[in-house]
């Protein structure tokens, strides 16, 4: 297992990414962008089903023959309101991974797997509703990822989330640390941030702007938002990524829709391929 201390460039990235967010466990509810948590949750007894589909293309393996790796991911998530200010999110990504490599090097490969199931509890410990629309909330998130990529390991994670909504504007900030207890060897083509043996720190920030309706009325039942996220992935092996994720979202009373593009801003990667691009679409259905 390879581990290293926090490098200077990682610290610089923290400073640079002050407004950033990450590819966290996507525990979501109202007025929340696709990759960043918010301190919101369904009421006790309610359940939200959130299927999401992603296609993510990565570049060449830094240490191997592959020239391109594409992940097709169907992420099945359920969030359950447990009690006052508590919720539980369960998430299981189903992945199809397609790796391209020259024939001379053995050609490409592909695999299908449900390689992890994540359980995340969220507890809102602060709430201040200071206007009909306006609110500030903070929550702690903690749980574990049951990782079956190489044996069965439980990777605990803990973090905090802050949400502020003011009129048409919303901001979410999330910081989360996951301690990897297993993981597959680094320097493979088919791993993403957090899949290897290093611990993972995620820092995510999202800005959500409601562009329709400009003003809610007594008959309003839905709203359209544009979103912009900064997603930071920092691993203790030194690998660091900063991504930008613009998107659009419709939020209804029961059914919501979201679509986002994710692009790299800066990469410092030695152990895994660099992200070229990623697109994601999802639904949220509240029962």
């Amino acid at each position: 297992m390879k581990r290293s201390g926090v490098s200077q460039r990682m610290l610089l990235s923290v400073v640079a990414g002050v407004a950033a967010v990450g590819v966290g466990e996507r525990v979501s509810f109202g007025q929340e962008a696709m990759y960043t948590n918010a301190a919101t949750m369904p009421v006790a007894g309610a359940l939200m089903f959130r299927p999401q589909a992603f296609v993510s293309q990565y570049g060449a393996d830094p240490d191997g023959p592959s020239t391109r790796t594409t992940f097709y991911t169907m992420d099945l998530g359920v969030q359950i309101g447990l009690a006052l200010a508590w919720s539980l999110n369960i998430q299981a990504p189903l992945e199809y991974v397609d790796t391209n490599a020259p024939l001379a090097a053995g050609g490409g490969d592909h695999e299908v797997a449900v390689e992890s199931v994540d359980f995340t509890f969220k507890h809102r410990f602060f709430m201040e509703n200071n206007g009909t629309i306006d609110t500030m909330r903070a929550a702690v998130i903690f749980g574990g990822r049951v990782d079956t990529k190489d044996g069965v390991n439980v990777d605990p994670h803990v973090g905090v989330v802050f949400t502020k909504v003011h009129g048409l504007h919303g901001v979410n900030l999330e910081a989360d640390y996951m301690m990897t207890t297993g993981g597959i060897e680094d320097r493979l083509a088919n791993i993403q941030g957090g899949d290897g043996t290093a611990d993972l720190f995620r820092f995510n920030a999202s800005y959500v702007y409601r562009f329709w309706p400009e003003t809610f009325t007594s008959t309003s039942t839905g709203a359209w938002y544009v979103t912009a996220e900064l997603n930071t992935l920092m691993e203790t092996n030194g690998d660091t990524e900063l991504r930008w994720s613009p998107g659009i979202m419709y939020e209804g009373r029961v059914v919501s829709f979201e679509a986002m593009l994710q692009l790299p801003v800066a990469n410092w990667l030695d152990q895994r391929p660099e992200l070229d691009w990623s697109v994601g679409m999802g639904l949220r259905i509240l029962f």
Partner: protein
Amino acid sequence: MTTYTKLTAAMVVAGAMMVGGCAGGGGQVGRAEVAGAGGATTGAGAGAGAGAGAEAKPTEGVVHSVSAKDLAETHSTTALEGDEVTLWVNGLGCPQCATNIDKALENVRGVTSVQVDLGAGKVLVGLGGRSRPSPHDLSEAVKDAALTLVKIEK
């Protein structure tokens, strides 16, 4: 190391939006106001510059201006009378928040219907049956939905 200069610029723009986003707000005000004890309750259209007054049309960004007496009444344990009450609620920021309060109030005994007005930050609650809820019961349900009840209009 690969650095994407153009996207970094875009990131800076997005960051600036984040910093500036909440500060702008189109003049909307986000603060509950409590008038002096015994003061008249008013609906102040803060964002649109509407004057304070009982007849003021609610607009988004409204601050429910209520008296200390109004706030105290939301904790009363005396059963409500009548067929409906209007709840003045803070924090109704999104459509799913409306669904949350729907579900929370519908679980309260004596509540027969719930109608959420996102624009005004108000919830019309129908009451019926032998066992009527108290303001405290409704306040707790609103709290369960992560919202804040500031006044019950009977």
